[in-house]
Every structure is written in structure tokens, then in C-alpha cells.
């Protein structure tokens, strides 16, 4: 009862409440995080995790409540105050200036004087030191927009360390990382922890919680429902606390029963608008009734592959759908013509491609299918009533919450947004479904549902091409796995005959079994 109890927690929140207009994002939340620990926070989409952390970082102002740092009540009216209190935060959506260099991003707001030169020089030196100390190597002169997400995240962490943060908050840091990058991140976090820094980690991935955290809190609908020691809980237990019901953490599916070839790709090459060859001659077949998963680190040509198949990028080579050659020149094809041929496409990025965030749900359900006769009265007028009705039904079948077709897409949580896209594409009954990153940023309750839907479509005898950076997802969902690296397919594996380690090596461009 002595010493350990008296040491003040690094962070203590008391009775934090926050409302956005009518939405109560945080309700009377209290929590303590001990110094030198990694504390996990989990919760469904929209549970209020990001809001709580943003309050701690001074980005939002709490309506009521108190913050204590190292036992001292501290007012955090803005991020400046948070930074001086030793808090650093890596946001879910990075706060980086895209066309700035790494160095510029790091010194921004932490300059030493009114001239840049000395600041940059000093930062360069410190950066070198930091990156060696923590394995956080990045090119200080690279532009952010040319960096992979993993590297961008390193920049965010370096930013916090450069400002001498003792408390580091990471909001869904692994949503966009490869398993390798995630492991790397966790090594860094553990290193930081060993130095006595305190870390708060928000994630949807229970595996990560179990792996790296010391304690974990669960949030539901704006409230903190539980805080437990990680060693005293299990993934199933956490999932249940989070969602309020039992969740199946493994994908439940029967063995595949593949039929004819639906998609045949031969020697496909894609050159992007900067003249860089992104896909360098790949061959791939997808059969009816099977899910082919493409694993790989983001940026190795998967996105371009999906774009070509989706009809809005040019390529050379040959792609056949049900034995019929597709136009790859872009002259006679676009997203619309591909859909008419029976290719549905759940794009990787729901915010910039899959959805129009300011459109209402029903308008998004017609998105890409605006020319469908069922959605149109005649050659000119759309049949909005029919779309609304269809949306209502889709929302019920796919359990989109809230099931209000008139709500703007941006008002749905990530998981529910994804369900809208999925409902739209799956219910088209396509011959081929292209799915990119189906569960990025989605909470586990929704993941379970999305996976079930994809499997169900397969069981109807449809061909599915799945692209994901989540190895776990690929392993659980795919019937056959192709690994892409640098525009090539490094090899194909069957899920039950391989493991994360082998796939990880392939993703890194190492093909041991190739000989």
C-alpha cells in the first residue's frame, strides 16, 4: 500500500463531459493512467475515444471536468498548453502539411527563433539522434506527400518526441500499417515505455491491446464502461464489453467450392500519370465461388490494380471477364461500363472514392449506379422515391445505424459508412466483387458483419478479389492468397498452408521458397 499508491498517475481525468451540439460525445469520464505504462482504449466507432483524447490534447475544450498531469491540476485550453505539459498526440488523421518536408513539419510550432535556418539545422541534428535512438528513420528532406503512411506516422511520433513529450497519445495508429510496420511501432512504443514515458493507445484491434498494453479501458456511447488490467482479460471478454454482445472473432466459413474462371489477368502493366510503372506484368485468375486475397504493403501496385479493374485507370495487357476481353485503354470504359459488365467495386478509400460525404445515404446508394433503370423514371429524371425505398431496405438488411436514409454520409461512423458502400456493391449481385481494405478503421462489431457478408457472396458462387493490408483479415477471409511486391506478384499461397511470417517475407520482397 505504500509507495506505489502514492506516486501520482501521469494522467488523471475527472468527470470529463463534452457535447457537440446535440451529440453527447463524452459523458462524465474519469480515468487514471499510471506513469510508465501503456494504456489501451477500445470502443466502437463513435464511442468518443478520439474526442476524449482531443480534449486531453487541448484540441477540443471539455464542457466540464478536470485534468491532472502528474497529480497537478492543469488547465489545457489549447494544444500549446498540452505540449508544455509534456503531452504529444498522433491523430487518427495525421496533422501533417502534405507539401512540406519532414523537417519543416517537425519544427512547425517548435521553432527556436524567427529565422528558420537555425531551427532547421538544430532539428536536423536532433532528428538524427532521435531516429537512431528509437529506430525512427525517415529522410528529413522528403516531402510528406511522397512518404508512405507508415513513414508519415513516424514523422508524427518524431514531432511529439521533438517537443519532449512524456505522454504520448496514439489514435488508431495501426489502422494503416502493415503487420511489419505495426510490430516496428510496438517495439518503439515499448522502448519509450522503458524510458518512463506514458502511452495511450487507441485501437480497434484486440490483438494489439493484448500484445502491448498494461491496462485497457473500454468506452461505449460516450461513457467509460470498464478499466481492467490487460493480463486479467481476454479478447472475447473485451469484445463483449465493447459491443454489448458476444462477438465472433474468427471468420466462420465453409471451404470454398471454386468454379469456372471469372477473371483472367495476363501480363497486366500500369503506368501512372507521373510515368512510373506501378504494376509490372502480373497474371492472376479469380474463379467463381472463391475469395482471392491480395496481401502486400500499401503502395506496391494493389491500388492501381483495383483502379484498372474498376475501369478508371489505363493499362496494357489483357483482362478477361467471363472470357470476354475488357477495354484497358480507357477510351471505351469507365467505372460505369465496368459495373454494367458485372464488376462491383468497394474502393480502398471510402472517403475520397466510395462515398460523397456531403450526400445523404440514399444518394450514396445510387452512387455509381445512377444510370440503373431501377433508379430512373425515364431518360432524364431519376426515381428518387425508389432509391429511398431501396436504401431503407438495404440499411435494414445491413444493420446500418442509424437507419436513416436522409442522413448525410459524413454523419455515419466509419463502420456504418463502410456498410453503406458494401450494401450498395454486394446487392448488385455482381459476377466479380473488388474489395479494397474493407474494414479499415472499422470496429470489431462491424468487421464481423462485413466479413460475413463477403463470405455469403462467395457462397452464392461469385468471384471476389480482396485487397487488404491486414494479414489477419487476408488469412481469415481468403481462399487463395497472392502477395504483391513492387508491382509483381511474389507468389500465391493457400491460407492453411502458410503463415504470417512467410507472407510477411513475401511482402518484403523475399521469396525463399521460389527456388
Amino acid at each position, binding site marked *: 500500500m505504500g509507495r506505489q499508491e502514492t506516486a501520482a498517475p501521469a494522467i488523471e481525468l475527472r468527470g470529463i463531459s463534452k457535447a457537440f*451540439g*446535440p451529440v453527447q460525445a463524452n459523458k462524465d469520464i474519469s480515468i487514471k493512467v499510471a506513469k510508465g505504462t501503456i494504456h489501451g482504449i477500445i470502443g466502437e466507432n463513435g464511442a468518443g475515444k478520439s474526442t476524449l483524447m482531443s480534449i486531453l490534447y487541448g484540441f477540443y475544450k471539455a464542457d466540464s471536468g478536470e485534468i491532472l498531469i502528474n497529480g497537478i491540476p492543469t488547465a489545457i485550453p489549447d494544444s500549446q498548453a498540452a505540449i508544455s505539459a509534456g503531452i504529444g498526440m498522433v491523430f487518427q488523421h495525421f496533422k501533417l502539411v502534405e507539401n512540406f518536408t519532414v523537417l519543416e513539419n517537425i519544427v512547425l510550432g517548435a521553432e527556436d527563433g524567427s529565422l528558420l535556418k537555425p531551427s532547421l539545422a538544430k532539428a536536423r541534428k536532433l532528428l538524427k539522434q532521435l531516429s537512431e535512438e528509437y529506430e525512427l528513420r525517415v529522410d528529413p528532406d522528403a516531402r510528406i506527400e511522397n512518404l508512405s503512411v507508415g513513414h508519415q506516422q513516424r514523422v508524427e511520433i518524431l514531432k511529439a518526441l521533438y517537443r519532449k513529450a512524456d505522454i504520448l497519445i496514439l489514435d488508431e495508429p495501426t489502422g494503416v500499417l502493415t503487420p511489419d510496420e505495426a510490430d516496428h511501432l510496438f517495439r518503439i512504443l515499448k522502448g519509450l515505455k522503458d524510458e518512463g514515458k506514458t502511452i495511450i493507445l487507441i485501437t480497434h484491434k484486440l490483438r494489439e491491446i493484448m500484445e502491448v498494453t498494461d491496462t485497457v479501458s473500454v468506452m461505449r456511447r460516450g461513457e467509460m464502461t470498464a478499466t481492467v488490467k490487460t493480463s486479467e482479460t481476454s479478447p472475447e471478454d473485451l469484445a463483449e464489453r465493447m459491443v454489448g454482445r458476444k462477438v465472433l472473432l474468427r471468420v466462420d466459413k465453409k471451404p470454398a467450392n471454386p468454379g469456372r474462371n471469372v477473371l483472367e489477368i495476363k501480363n497486366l502493366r500500369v503506368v501512372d500519370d507521373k510515368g512510373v510503372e506501378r504494376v509490372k506484368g502480373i497474371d492472376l485468375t479469380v474463379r467463381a465461388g472463391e475469395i482471392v486475397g491480395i496481401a502486400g504493403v500499401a503502395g506496391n501496385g494493389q491500388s492501381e490494380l483495383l483502379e484498372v479493374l*474498376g*475501369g*478508371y485507370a489505363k493499362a496494357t495487357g489483357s483482362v478477361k471477364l467471363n472470357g470476354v476481353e475488357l477495354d484497358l485503354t480507357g477510351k471505351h470504359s*469507365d*467505372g*460505369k*461500363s*465496368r*459495373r454494367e459488365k458485372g464488376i462491383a*467495386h468497394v*474502393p480502398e478509400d471510402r472517403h*475520397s*472514392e*466510395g*462515398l*460523397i*460525404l*456531403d*450526400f445523404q445515404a440514399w*444518394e450514396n446508394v*445510387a*452512387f*455509381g449506379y*445512377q*444510370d440503373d433503370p431501377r433508379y*430512373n423514371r425515364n431518360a*432524364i*429524371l*431519376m426515381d*428518387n422515391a425508389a432509391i429511398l425505398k431501396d436504401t431503407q431496405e438495404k440499411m435494414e438488411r445491413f444493420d446500418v445505424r442509424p437507419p436513416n436514409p436522409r442522413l448525410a454520409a459524413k454523419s455515419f461512423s466509419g463502420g456504418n459508412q463502410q456498410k453503406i458502400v458494401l450494401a450498395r456493391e454486394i446487392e448488385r449481385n455482381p459476377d466479380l466483387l473488388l474489395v479494397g481494405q474493407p474494414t479499415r478503421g472499422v470496429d470489431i462489431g462491424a468487421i464481423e458483419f462485413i466479413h460475413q457478408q463477403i463470405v455469403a457472396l462467395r457462397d452464392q458462387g461469385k468471384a471476389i478479389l480482396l485487397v487488404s493490408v491486414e494479414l489477419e483479415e487476408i488469412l481469415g477471409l481468403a481462399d487463395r492468397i497472392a502477395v504483391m511486391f513492387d508491382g509483381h506478384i511474389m507468389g500465391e499461397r493457400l491460407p492453411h498452408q502458410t503463415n504470417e511470417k512467410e507472407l510477411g517475407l513475401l511482402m518484403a520482397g523475399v521469396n525463399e521458397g521460389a527456388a
Partner: protein
Amino acid sequence: MKKMPKWADVLLIPAINLSLAFLISGLVIWAIGKDPWVAIKTMVQGSFGDSRGLGYTLYYTTNFIFTGLAVAVASHARLFNIGGEGQATVGGLGVALVCLAVPWPHWTLALPAAILGGALFGAAWAAIPAYLQAKRGSHIVITTIMFNFIAAALLGYLLVNVLKEPGNMAAETRSFPPGAHLPTFHEMLAPFGIDFNKNAPANISFLVALLCLIGFYVLIWKTRLGYAIRAFGQSESAAVYAGISPVKITIIAMLISGGLAGLMAINNVMGEAERLILNSVEGAGFIGIAVALMGRNHPVGVFLAALLFGFLYQGGAELALWESIPRELIVVIQGLVILLTGALDNMVRAPLEKLFLSFGKGEA
């Protein structure tokens, strides 16, 4: 847990904003030594008090509906068309050529032809900036500004050197044939026993403008094309994913926009002046920007904003007529109205929203 009720959003806030604008205008009027109360009475009386005033108000309103819709269509595709002025100028040329080319027997024939002429010429004038934006990435704001100047030069040249009647001092075409005369409200309403002022310039173009408002609504929210325009305007990358061609939509949206601006000419050129004169657009293209922005690119909003500006124009004229108030003061009032109802909207909205929220909570 209720948000602000809709009536407060669409009626109360604009009303408060407008009152503020007029309050400040009143102070300005008072500052230059006139009676603000008399001024406002003169304005309202002069623009809505009788059928003459109303006829003028609606005449201006008609112009602003066309140019406001022109800006609004382009805005839905996230294109900022500040070329309404030039497009309306060239549209006037189209209308004039149509009206002068044929000895029209009756307006029922002349009007559709003039509509076509105005819209086509206006659209053509928007076509080059549209093409350059879609295909070459030239910024539409620059090109449309440039095309305003070029249109003025073109019209000046044509009127002075080609279309002008010999012996006429003014650079203008001859008057249109009587068959191209559009019925004014007086003529339109006489059969119904309504005696509308004979000389007010409001004419059947107003009804065309109303049809355009409805057409605009249908186009933007009920048709596939409108859907594509809005989708493209919201997100180009998403539009590409959905198979909507950015090039095509950019060009189509600008053609419609230019066509609407050009259509304005059936009101000012064919309906009012009945001949083509220099500078007949008189800045209506620029007012259209304010109208579209204040009307939130929605036809009801555009209509109300156009009416507001029609009122300011006509009321301003009356003010100048009877109160000897310099016309620039009217410009100041217009500026204040735009500023308060358009740009400083949140000054009133935010506190009001809070107020309603706390009421809502009290009830819950």
C-alpha cells in the same frame, strides 16, 4: 436534444441579418443628413407599393434570377463562373441577331427563337473557358474574367462598326420589329381584368425565369445529369470512381451556366430595351454571384435573393428620385446586405443556435 428548428434557420436568421443590414444603412443615411425612416418607406413603397414599382422590381429580379442561376449551376460542379457578365453580353448579341434577322410576325414565335439565340450565344461564350478548364487545367476564374473583357470589346466593335444604324448617335442596333415585342405584365394581366401599370418593364421573361428556377430544381435534384454535376462538385475522385467524366461534366455545367446567363438577354434586351445597346448587362453578372452565394445555390434562395436585389435596385432608384440620395449610397446598402446576410451569417446564427439548444434541453 433538438437542433435549431428549420423555420428559424430559413426565416428568422435571414430576417435578423437583414434588419441589421438596414439598421446600419439607416445609420449611414442618418449620417449624411437624411431621414432613415422616410428613406426606408420610400424604398418599400416605391418597389412594392404599386404595380409600377413592382413591375420594375420584378424586372430587375428577372435579370438576377438568370445570372444567379448561372452562377449556381456552375457552383454545384464547384466551378466559380465569374463570367456571367460576358456571357450575358454575348447572349444579348444572340437575342438581338435573332430578333433583327427575321420580321417576326408574333412574339410567340420570336420568344422561343430568342431564347435559343441567347442561350446558345451565352453557352458558346462559356464553352472556351470550360474547355480550357476541363482539358488544359486553365483556371476558370482567370479565363472567365478575361472573357468578360473580351466580350465587352467584341460588343463594342460590333455595335460601333457593324450593327449600328447609320446616323444614330448611340452605339445601338435599330429597334426590334414589333413582332418581337414581348408582352409586359400590363398586357398579360389585362385579360384577367387586372390593371397592371402599363409602363413597367416587367414582362413575360419573368415567367421564363420562374420556369428556369423550377427547371433548375429538377435538373439539380431530380435528374441524372444534376446528380452527376453535384457528385463531381463534391468530389472529383469519387466522380471518377462512379464513372462520371470530369471533362464532360465541367463542359456541360459551364454550357448550362453560360446559357442561363445568356438567357438574361430576353429580359433586358428583348423585353425592356427592344434593341441592343452597349453595356446592357450593367453588372447583373456580378450581382448574380452575390445572389447565388446568398441563395445557397438553391432555387428558392436564388429567387429570394434576386427579389432582394430587385428591391434594392428599384427602391434605390426611388430613393434617388425623391430623396436626392446619391446613387452610391444604394451601393453601400447593397454591400451591407451582402455582408450581413451572406458573410456575417454566423454572427447571428451561433448565439441563436445556442439559445435554441438550451431551450431544447430545458424542455427535455
